[in-house]
């Protein structure tokens, strides 16, 4: 009994923190319609800021608390509203999700920048060691404090929401935004208020939970996934239900933890399971909830890109393989090894195209499918058996269909959340399972945390060497990109695009929506599995970190920024993430910065080593280019170049000359690469006038262009 009480006490403490975090999430979602994936990152930033003031600068705790939670947090909330969220007012739900994911990655990057992650930062609990004994039950002071803060928050929220004009207006916004304006209230001021309250709640949760989680950026950021579960129990809008959800979650977690030794199965499976309790609850609530949860709108990713042609995609495929073959000759073998992962990542990026780009289903777990593909290669491909690749496609495909099942009942943000929950479940539990026996077989899924992946042999032809693997990877990437274009051009691809635009019309025209959704998830998960297999084989050994949730988000963001429906964007994503393009570019810039500008050199060095912040910042600019940079900026220019043989010839010729000069050893790889990049990007931009508008007004623009060209010829 004594034990039960003490588990209850710690459960209440955990529940209290979940409640605070979830309340902030619900508040901003209901009043502004933006589901903030960056809520956890805000908590994390709050915790780090507090730590800096309290333990690095040795400010007294009350001062640090007031400055952090009372001044900086609300200011940050206002900044978010003014700088980012206000511009999302009329955008699609997908753009909103993607923007907050960028924000999350950006904040994560920012914290890695400011606080070196390899340093340990002790964060003692408040009143460490002090214990209150109440009727024989020992209650640590920090739990008392946490509970008190939560009660204060609950009471404060209740008072604000029920008694103040601001609060009543915030609730009114949930019901009818324009009616609030008709009453003479300024909607943006109300949004600002709710963002600052939401941010303060996030930061408070961060400061309270940091001591239990250690001050470490990623776990703190993912705290929000636990809060999602509580928030979803409140259907993302009901605060009392959210608090109740947090209570259930907190207690369940602590009881599991407390009684794990008396559970019927071996305790070594439990740690992962414990960490997964909130996500499992989240999945259950989403899938079994009483009524289907529909998001605000269908997830729409606008596509203004033309239907890809066979000739174009075949050209690109051949080009990729040729360039890879040529490059493999000039790049040192050690670099070739590093570059081997480009193709695997590129294929995983390609796998996003059917599901997100065509089908409009936001999948946040593509890397988990890739991880399953790696696992297949580990277990079935130890002798380089090509059948392992088949398994790396089939097994993730089956898993993909299971992940797609919730989409029958869920849409928009709710479905995206279920894929996130799946990814986190894989990260925290399945991939971390130790060796166990089941059905008479030995299972060791992730090989104890690190896979050892043999490259494939095809009928005696080994892909073992770095050079041959590089070319082979390019060939597989090229084939998959042609396949993806094939999907787009097929009947099935048309139906996917149709489904994205209007599920209601599809149903009334005779399409079986469920089959279509299962199909697209199977295809894309299968491709992700294949990509994962190649990615792993490229690295030859893979850790769970390479396939975790955050990697899925990063890859998705790079794809969104580059353009979700073009294979060229996938190539870019593969090169950017696989080759560390970020590091290369900013690292080189840093090298060129004169020595006396030490800060600038430092700045670019940091930027180079911080892919997250670059991806995050790029994603935040999405409001301006919802179709992606490659698709709306680079592609149109290349189309114009392709229409001018002399320009094409010039560019091609310059590249050939540069390549020959490189072969002759007159320049090194860096100069060659820089020259190639200049020729391929800067020159087209310089010689081709900017297209006047994006393809958005395609019809009118085309007409105008034709007229302008005709006119030019006439003169």
């Amino acid at each position, binding site marked *: 009994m004594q034990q039960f009480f003490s588990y209850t006490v710690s459960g209440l403490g955990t529940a209290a923190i979940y409640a605070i975090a979830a309340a902030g999430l619900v508040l901003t979602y209901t009043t502004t319609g933006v589901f903030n994936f960056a809520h956890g990152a805000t908590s994390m930033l709050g915790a780090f800021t507090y730590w800096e003031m309290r333990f690095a600068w040795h400010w007294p705790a009350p001062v640090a608390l007031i400055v952090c939670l009372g001044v900086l947090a609300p200011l940050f909330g206002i900044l978010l509203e003014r700088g980012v969220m206000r511009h999302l007012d009329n955008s699609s739900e997908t753009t909103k999700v993607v923007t907050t994911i960028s924000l999350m990655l950006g904040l994560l990057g920012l914290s890695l920048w400011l606080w070196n992650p390899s340093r340990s930062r002790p964060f003692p609990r408040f009143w460490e060691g002090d214990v209150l004994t109440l009727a024989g039950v020992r209650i640590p002071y920090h739990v008392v404090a946490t509970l008190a803060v939560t009660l204060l928050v609950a009471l404060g929220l209740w008072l604000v929401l029920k008694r103040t004009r601001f609060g009543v207006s915030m609730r009114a916004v949930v019901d009818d935004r324009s009616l609030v304006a008709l009453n003479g209230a300024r909607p943006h001021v109300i949004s600002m208020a709710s963002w600052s309250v939401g941010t303060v709640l996030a930061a408070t949760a961060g400061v309270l939970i940091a001591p239990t989680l250690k001050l470490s950026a990623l776990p703190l950021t993912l705290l929000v996934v636990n809060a999602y579960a509580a928030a979803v129990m409140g259907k993302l809008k009901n605060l009392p239900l959210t608090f109740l959800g947090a209570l259930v979650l907190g207690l369940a977690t602590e009881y599991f933890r407390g009684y794990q030794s008396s559970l019927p199965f071996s305790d070594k499976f439990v740690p992962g399971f414990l960490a997964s309790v909130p996500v499992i609850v989240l999945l259950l609530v989403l899938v079994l909830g009483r009524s289907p949860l529909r998001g605000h709108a269908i997830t729409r990713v606008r596509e203004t890109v033309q239907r890809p042609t066979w000739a174009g995609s075949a050209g690109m495929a051949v080009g990729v393989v040729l360039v890879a073959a040529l490059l493999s000759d000039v790049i040192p073998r050690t670099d070739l090894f590093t570059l081997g992962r480009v193709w695997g990542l590129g294929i995983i990026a390609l796998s996003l195209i059917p599901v997100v780009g065509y089908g409009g289903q936001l999948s946040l777990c593509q890397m988990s499918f890739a991880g399953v593909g790696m696992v297949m290669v580990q277990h079935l491909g130890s002798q380089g058996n090509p059948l392992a690749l088949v398994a790396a496609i089939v097994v993730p495909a089956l898993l993909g269909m299971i992940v797609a099942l919730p989409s029958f009942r869920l849409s928009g943000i709710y479905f995206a959340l279920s894929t996130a929950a799946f990814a986190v479940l894989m990260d925290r539990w399945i991939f971390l399972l130790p060796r166990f026996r089941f059905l008479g077989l030995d299972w060791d899924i992730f090989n104890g945390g690190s896979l050892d992946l043999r490259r494939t042999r095809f009928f005696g032809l080994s892909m073992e060497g770095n050079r041959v693997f590089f070319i082979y990877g390019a060939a597989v990437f090229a084939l998959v990109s042609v396949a993806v274009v094939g999907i787009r051009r097929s*009947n099935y691809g*048309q139906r996917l695009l149709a489904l994205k635009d*209007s599920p209601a019309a599809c*149903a*009334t*025209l*005779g399409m079986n929506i469920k089959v279509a959704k299962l199909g697209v998830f199977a295809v894309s998960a299968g491709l992700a599995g294949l990509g994962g297999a190649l990615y792993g084989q490229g690295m030859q050994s893979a850790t769970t970190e390479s396939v975790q949730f955050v990697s899925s988000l990063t890859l998705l963001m790079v794809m969104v920024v580059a353009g979700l429906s073009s294979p060229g964007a996938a190539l870019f994503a593969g090169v950017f993430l696989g080759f560390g393009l970020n590091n290369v570019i900013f690292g080189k810039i840093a090298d060129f910065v004169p020595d006396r500008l030490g800060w600038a050199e430092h700045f670019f060095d940091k930027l180079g080593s911080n892919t997250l912040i670059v991806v995050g910042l790029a994603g935040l600019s999405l409001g301006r280019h919802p179709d992606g940079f490659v698709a709306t900026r680079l592609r149109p220019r290349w189309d114009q170049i392709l229409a001018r043989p002399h320009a094409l010839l010039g560019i091609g010729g310059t590249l050939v000359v540069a390549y020959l000069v490189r072969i002759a050893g007159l320049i090194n790889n860096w100069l060659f690469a820089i020259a190639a990049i200049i020729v391929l990007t800067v020159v087209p931009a310089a010689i081709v006038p900017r297209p006047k508008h994006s393809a958005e007004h*395609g*019809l009118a623009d085309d007409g105008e262009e034709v007229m302008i060209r005709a006119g030019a010829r006439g003169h």
Partner: protein
Amino acid sequence: MPVLEATDITVRFGGITALDGASLSVESGSVTGLIGPNGAGKTTMFDVLTGLTPVDAGTVTVAGRNVTRVAPHRRARLGVARTFQRLELFGALTVLENVECAAGMALGVRGRAAAASRIAAPLVARVGLGPVAHVRAGLLPTGQARLVEVARALATNPQVLLLDEPASGQSDTEREQFSRLLRDLADDGLGILLVEHDMDLVMSVCQRIVVLNFGRVIADDTPAAVRTNPAVMAAYLGTGAAHG
């Protein structure tokens, strides 16, 4: 036997009764109008007929077969097609692709691309969209966009066509052509149910008109009779106040 028949349909949303024992039927080869003041339940009736909204009571039959519990895509394959008041186009696809896609969906998984395009091209021409067949549907003005929906619905080879405000957003000449198209389609044996605000169009093409008010059918008669029906006038103008 009517090609489409709804009997005593009741639909409640929370505490609101959107349809309250409403019945109507559509005959092959004729145009039936469905009119009524705002919020009378016309679009809800369409959703019921196509299976997007489940009923609380009542039955829907297609050519005598009870389809009340049949999923939307199966009803489509039994010959029920519709358009939407709020456009539900496949904006990323061209006009022709929209129609091909619909033909393919109706043919099911066995649908062959060639068969679908054989159906699509003549239909696009028939509704008068030939010149814009290769324009992305999302770029079309509303009047033409509505025609895409009509062509798309026709591509499923329906027995009955439900049109939800097909003429709104169309110019006068487009309306003229459209009413001719409706008559042609009816002459070909199609049953048509038409919801439309343009009363001149409704009165001129419909053989029968069903009037809904507060979810109930208050008249089911010829256009001439509906126009002089005092209950219909009262539903539109309200009763009481000045003249009772």
